[in-house]
């Protein structure tokens, strides 16, 4: 989006928020329509479950509506909404599995050296794979990540939150966000390269 259109969009969003704060249901409905698909995707990406994602979607928009007065407008509305949805999603995760793989605060993973095994070029997979196939490849790769890496990658690289916003949302240090993002990006790169590399056109060597 160009900056002028973006700022016009934001102005118009502030009007909708002001209206919704005064109880204008239609205005809130417009905000819902604007972001519901992204919030659903976010919740599904984190929880890995359609059912949980539906619950999160509903709870997040209800909660946001109830706390709308607390939204001050310094942050983007979407970022504010994302924080609510992430918290709801994490609660689902923690409720579902009590095993330690869900813990977001463990630190052991940062001791390992980052690795890159697959060293091969690839280009424009969109041209060789259908949308559905692409979605499946990307979904499978992201599902294979541990939650502690997955959530950070989603917030930083899919939702485009800043490192600071991600740290604040997840209650992590900046260093922990950076370290997890590095590992998430490299692990996904590894998996996508395995799928997308041109056959018979590899491998330069190992690092």
């Amino acid at each position, binding site marked *: 989006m160009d900056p002028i259109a973006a700022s016009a969009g934001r102005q118009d969003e502030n009007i909708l928020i002001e209206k919704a704060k005064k*109880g204008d*249901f239609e205005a*809130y*409905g417009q905000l*819902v*329509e604007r972001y*519901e*698909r*992204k919030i*659903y*995707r976010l919740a599904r990406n984190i929880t890995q479950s*359609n059912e949980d994602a*539906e619950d999160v*979607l*509903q709870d997040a*928009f*209800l909660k946001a*509506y*109830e706390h709308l007065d607390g939204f001050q407008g310094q942050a983007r509305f979407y970022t504010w909404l994302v924080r609510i949805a992430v918290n709801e999603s994490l609660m689902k995760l923690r409720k579902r599995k009590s095993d330690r793989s869900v813990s977001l605060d463990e630190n052991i993973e940062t001791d390992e*050296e*980052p*690795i*890159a095994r697959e*060293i*091969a*070029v*690839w*280009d424009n*997979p*969109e041209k060789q794979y259908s949308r559905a196939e*692409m*979605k499946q490849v*990307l979904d499978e790769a*992201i599902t294979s990540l541990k939650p502690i890496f997955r959530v950070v*990658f989603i917030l930083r*690289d*899919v939702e*485009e939150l800043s*490192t600071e916003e991600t740290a604040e949302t997840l209650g992590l240090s900046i260093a922990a966000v*950076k370290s997890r*993002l*590095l590992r998430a*990006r*490299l692990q*996904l*790169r590894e998996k*996508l*390269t395995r799928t997308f590399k041109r056959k018979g056109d590899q491998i*330069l*060597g190992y*690092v």
Partner: protein
Amino acid sequence: MVTCKDFLREISEFLDDRADPQLQSELKAHITQCPNCWVILDTTLKTIQVYKGMEPQELPEGVHGQLMKALEKRCAAKTKKAQPPPTAQK
């Protein structure tokens, strides 16, 4: 001297342009001389781009309707609460 190991450790910061300027330029110099690291950088960048480029899909059937119904209910409850009770109007 930046090694391949150093490069890998810093690749994320390098991509986000957050490494300190001195290191950033040393990392840049490394990829001009090291084809392996260049490929890793290129494919990491592409990995991020394909995820960024994925459009969110339509919601499953009925989910939007359910959400709006739940919101409407809550909205009605909120407006009712905001009005003074009928006895207070006398």
